[in-house]
């Protein structure tokens, strides 16, 4: 499989109210298309920060992130976010005053893809995340958490990027909904060749992951999944 994302010695620090926080330290790894990655770790370990860096929400303090071989620092980050990396958030981050359809078509419109075609695409994406068409005209506050997260996934898919970044996508969901969401993401990776990176501390989803990274105090270490889940 082709590497879609390469991280070379990526570090990221920021200043909190009282101190400098080294959230990500010398991370070096690759992400391939068609695989599901999990980054696990305790709260504050830096996994969400790393995911945000992958999403182009900021640039690393040092090191490089290469998207399809090109450093994202040299790219227009807004364009990168618009066209290359789609983010799914724990708190869904849907626009409260836009309908499901409008939420899904919003990234399309940013790319100049609007009108009926965009709405038809939204309808199609809703089906793909196993939501009924009837939700299209609903507002996010009328949906359950699981449904909202599916809309979030559909919105991410609408961006037509091959990189799906999910930050604690099941954090606010019950177990059943969590499994459904994970199944969707795994299917997207395995069937549609997405590169899906999930930051989570939900260990129950790890067996479905292709690659698991463990993050501790900003340091990323790859785990052997087979060893991790081998019966004792």
């Amino acid at each position, binding site marked *: 499989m082709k590497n879609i994302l390469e991280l070379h010695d990526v570090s990221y620090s920021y200043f909190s109210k009282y101190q400098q926080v080294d959230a990500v330290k010398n991370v070096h790894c690759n992400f391939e298309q068609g695989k599901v990655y999990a980054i696990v770790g305790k709260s504050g370990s830096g996994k969400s920060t790393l995911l945000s860096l992958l999403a182009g*929400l900021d640039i690393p303090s040092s090191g490089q992130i290469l998207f399809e071989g090109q450093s994202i620092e040299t790219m227009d980050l807004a364009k*990168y*976010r618009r*066209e290359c990396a789609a983010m799914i958030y724990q708190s869904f981050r849907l626009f409260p005053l836009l309908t499901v359809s409008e939420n899904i078509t919003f990234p399309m419109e*940013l790319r100049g893809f609007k009108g009926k075609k965009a709405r038809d695409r939204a309808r199609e994406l809703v089906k793909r995340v196993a939501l009924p068409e009837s939700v299209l005209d609903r*507002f*996010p506050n009328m949906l359950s958490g699981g449904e909202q997260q599916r809309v979030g996934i559909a919105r991410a898919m609408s961006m037509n990027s091959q990189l799906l970044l999910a930050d604690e996508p099941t954090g606010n969901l019950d177990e059943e909904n969590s499994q459904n969401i994970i199944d969707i993401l795994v299917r997207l990776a395995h069937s549609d060749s997405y590169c899906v990176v999930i930051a989570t501390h939900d260990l129950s989803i790890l067996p479905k992951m292709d690659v698991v990274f463990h993050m501790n105090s900003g340091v990323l270490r790859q785990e052997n999944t087979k060893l991790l889940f081998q019966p004792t």
Partner: protein
Amino acid sequence: MLLIFALTLALALGVSVWASVADFLGDCDDFYTTIGLVEYMGISYPDDTAYDPAMDKALQSFDSATITNDESTLFWETPSRSFGYVEGFWRTDTFMPDRMLSVLVVGNVAYSEENDIYNAIVFDSLYSTSIKDNQYIFIEKEFGTFEPNRFYLIFGEAYRGYSPILHIRAAAYNNAITKANGVNIPRMIDITSDGSDEQHFTIPEESILVKIAQTLSVTNNSVLVSATNNLLALQDFHQEELFFVDGRTFRKEEYQNGSKVAVISDLMAARLGIGVGDSFELSVAVSDYPGVYNSYWVEDGFSYEETFTVVGLTNTVMDKSWYVYVPQSAGVPTSPFPIGYTVGCAIIENEDALDFFTRMESKINGRFNLRIYDQGYATVALPYQNILLTAIIVTSVCAFVQLAVLLLFGFLFIYRQREASETMLMLGAGKLRVCGYFLFSAGAIALIATASGAATAYWLHDQIILLVSRAAGNFALIDSRFSNGNLTITRTLSFAPDLDWQLFLIIGAVVFVLAILACLGFMLAAFNRSKPGQKKQRGPSSEGKTSPLPGGSLKYALLSILRGGERSLVVPVLALAIVIFLGQLTTTSQRYQDQLEAIYDNTTIEGYFTDIKGKQIGNLVLNAYDIRNLYHSDYLSALAVTMDIPYMYLGISQFADGQMTDLSPLYVPSNSYRRESLEETIRRGPNLTAANNIRKSPEFYYADDVEMTFLEDVDETFLAVPSTHPQVLSCIVPTSLMAEHGLSLGDSIRVATDKIITNQDGDRIYLHMDLRVVGSYEKQGIEDTIYTPLAILFFDTKLIWGEDQPASGPLQLDADFSQDLDPEQTERYLKLAVFHSTIFSLKDSHELIDFKDYLDNYGYSQVNHIGKIREFIVLKDASFNNAVASIAQQNRYIKLLYPFLYTLIAIISITVSYLLVASRKAEFATMRGLGAKRSRAFFSFFYEQSILCLLGTGIGIIIWQLIYGQPSSMHLKLIAGFLISYFLGSAISMIIMNQTKVLQILLDRD
């Protein structure tokens, strides 16, 4: 802490100014007394003992309830006066009623052929203020024939001519009682004895002349008894013309229980040989005849006699030295007829004086006139009233802001720390302990801030008070110079407050307690706050229709507006309210400005020359040079002057049909005694008044209307425009004169003055004038004044009005004599010329202050304030000043308040828009996270806020237009300012958000 310190300081200083100024105003109220004096501006005004039948008649329709029912009136008193007499007191003043009347026993009477007069020796002066026993006198021939070696009792009037020897001429005795009884008063009675008792003459005790002598000795030495319920409210005392040199005023109980106590002048006391605590016999006479001196006739005697004790002595003022003041409760009978021109005196609330004047001015009509005497209260207190109001506003704002800051303090120091308090509670610390911990720490901060604020205020308050005292000058809204609202004496009361430190301690303590209460409130709120639950999601409550709109910032903005629910209403409602509010502010400001302009445009301010007391408008001596300069000051639109000269009516010189008479001139008698007598008669005669506006002459100035009849094609402007008969001067005469001499309109009359000239025949004659009677008028007084154009007195009006005289201005008829005068001669000429009254109108009331500056700089005097030139001017601007000051005060507040309000609106606009945009941070972050450009995010929210704001503003403007009409340009400018503020707030908020890393926002949120 700094904020609480600063606000405590400001609050304490505000309260200290408030308290000290309020205290000072209280002192002013005690120190000053304002009276409103209502007088009748009769023809003999300001004669304080005159009886004016016109006033008596007018009083019948005067309703004093207008004044007594006014809310500002504290006390009202009409004069209670009567004729009195105190045995042993004698008068020497010039106000004695019959000062020169004499009753004399004369003998050795001889006729002088040379002088054409009798001379005689006074054997017994029964009554005379000027002729004593054994004095040599002249007796006019009009007494009749005196036989040699006879003695006579004669009654006449003494007068002085050019010689040192006194003359006696026949005189009338005008006692109403004798007239009513039809008593015949002979000029002389032969009282030569028959020789049986070795006396040369015998004075007949029952003779009317003896009784006149006895009456004169009482009336000419009489006193005026003035009964009052408030001595110090009487104008003379109030204006400190009279003051106590010994003793005191009446006590409250003396006013109430009928005490027989009196206040007299020290001159009277000295002549009576008494002092404070001594007693005197006061006799009072009241008759059925008007006129104070008609109250007594010796045969009728007195109607009241009582012993009074002197409790106070006043200084001696010549025209008041014979006044006796007693309490009304003493029961002294009072004359049923008015004596003098005072209608009544009111004590009014000091601070309402100007409003009272404005209210009354329209109700007190005709010759009734109200004057306010406030002893300088308005000058002193009004600026402080404005300062007080400003201090109240500032203090209230400080208190309000202080309260808000204390709430913020409680919120920040207590409520924001609620997690710590929850933790402490979880760890088992009781609520009391947690409360104590937080209150102690917050209380310590509050204590330091409030204590230091109060202490600093105490340290600074002296300087602030000094500043206030200096600022008082700037707060004076009325320029009372030369104003008819400022005819008063000015008493001085200095603003020197002495504030105790306790006041500052109390303020500090109150702020501290409020801080603690605020903290306590937030502590309780923190304890009681509900546990955090599932956050309710925001969004529309019903399913929507996916918008077919094309994408973009505008679409997002419109969808947000349409689906924002109540959030979308906040901004339009706010904008609408602000538009209306700004409209109200500008309208209020504009209304005041319009009112001010209307007052300026509709007011013609008139002024007049007067005496030092501001009472007389005629009989003045006014330099024509000064009047010329006044007219040329360019501030005046009209000038009315009069010049008086006494005349003697000689007869008709030409009838209306053109028929001439053979009326002779008035030759100067060759006999100097005759000449003295004749000239004395002319000088006592009525006046020929040269005027350019009869309505502005002293006789008619206070009259409601002037009844005049004219020949066809003639009207009263003949005084101001050239006569159509250049050879004959015109005049208007009283109807009484026409009736007395059988005159018809069109006749020419000849009047003589006391000036001597030599005619063409070489004879010395008195200057006379032939005046064509072109009109008649109903006179207001008893004098037969003849009004003529100014040119009659050889006054070249060009010297004042110039060649380009206004259409209404006077033109001289015979003024060629002045054509060749150079400027220096003109000045000299004008400096010698005298006007006897001058009334003028201001061209433009906007220039009132400048005009007052001009008068001040020129040196004119104000009533009670003597300047370089002893010519006193009063401007009738009290009501105007009051109206202007009232609006100016509002304008001052507007000027103080409006910038604050505008700033407040701008701050509110910026804050609201900033917060509303900032509250959308999550959406912004999501939008940016999805790859939206900065500009897209910026305009998505900026459009939304702008549309909402413009929508509300538009609706506001439409509503305003529907209700009030076209918004003013100022209103529109302020709306533009508001919009800019609002847009600015939105833009700033978006720019700040755009500069924040998206990751930072997302991390904060998640």
